[in-house]
C-alpha cells in the first residue's frame, strides 16, 4: 500500500510540474525576473497548490491519525535560526542561477539531459557535503 501510494504520488507530482511548466527553466527564470520581462504564471501554480494544501490541513486537524500510517510525522520545529535563513538564502541563489529547484532538476535528467546531469550531480555532492558536515558535528 505504501509503495503504491508513494509511486502514484511521485507520478502525479511530476505531472503537476510538467503541466505547470516548472520543468522548464525559461519559465522559472521568467517568473523570478520581476524587474524584467515578468511571467507571472507560477503564481497561479503556487496559489492553487497551497489552496488545496490549506484544505488538506483543515481535514488533517479533524483526524487523530493518517488513513494508512499509524501516526503523523509532520515537521514540528518552530524556531527560526541562522541555518534556516542561510540555507534558504543559498538555495535561492542556486535556484536563480539555473532556474532548477530539486524536483524540476530531477525531471531535467530526461527532459534536458545535457543540463540535468551536471545539475543533479552537483546537487548530490552539495547534499553530501551537508550530510558529512552534520555527521562530523554530531560526534
Amino acid at each position, binding site marked *: 500500500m505504501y509503495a503504491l501510494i*508513494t509511486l502514484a504520488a511521485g507520478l502525479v507530482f511530476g505531472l503537476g510540474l510538467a503541466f505547470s511548466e516548472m520543468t522548464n527553466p525559461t519559465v522559472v527564470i521568467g517568473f523570478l525576473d520581476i524587474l524584467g520581462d515578468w511571467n507571472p504564471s507560477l503564481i497561479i501554480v503556487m496559489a492553487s497548490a497551497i489552496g488545496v494544501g490549506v484544505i488538506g490541513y483543515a481535514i488533517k486537524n479533524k483526524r487523530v491519525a493518517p488513513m494508512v500510517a499509524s501516526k503523523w510525522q509532520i515537521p514540528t520545529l518552530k524556531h527560526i535560526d541562522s541555518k534556516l535563513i542561510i540555507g534558504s538564502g543559498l538555495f535561492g541563489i542556486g535556484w536563480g542561477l539555473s532556474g532548477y529547484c530539486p524536483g524540476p532538476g530531477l525531471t531535467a535528467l530526461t527532459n534536458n539531459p545535457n543540463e540535468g546531469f551536471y545539475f543533479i550531480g552537483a546537487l548530490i555532492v552539495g547534499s553530501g557535503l551537508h550530510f558529512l558536515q552534520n555527521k562530523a558535528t554530531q560526534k
Partner: protein
Amino acid sequence: MDSIFNPLVGGLLIGLTATVYMLTIGKVIGISGILSQLLFSKERFLPFLFIAGLIIGGSAYGVFTEQTVPFPEVRSPWLLIISGLLVGYGTRLGGGCTSGHGVCGISRFSPRSIVATLTFMATAIITVAIVN
C-alpha cells in the same frame, strides 16, 4: 499569459498529491528531503519509487502537456554545477525546498517555512536581476 488552464491544473495536481500523501502516509512531500533519504538513509525503497515516479511524470512535459517557451540553450556546465552545489547544500541546511517549505509548509502556516520561502524567493529574484 495565454492561458491559466495549464498552471492551474499543474498547481492543483501538486497540491492534491501533497494532500493525499499527507492524509494517508502522514508525511509532507519535500523533494530535497526525499532525495537525501534515497542517497543517505538505509530505507531507500520508497524514496526510490517516489523519485522514479517524479521523473516519469515530469517526462510528460511537452509530450502530453503544453510547452509555451523553448528550453534555454544549453548553458555552461560550471553554471549548472555551481547552481547544483548551492541548491543541494542550501536545501539541506535550510531543511527544505520549494515543495517542502514553499507548498507544504505554507499550507500549514508554519512560520519557519514562511520565513524560508520569503528568503529563497528574495535571493532568487536578486540573483536573476543581477544575472540578467
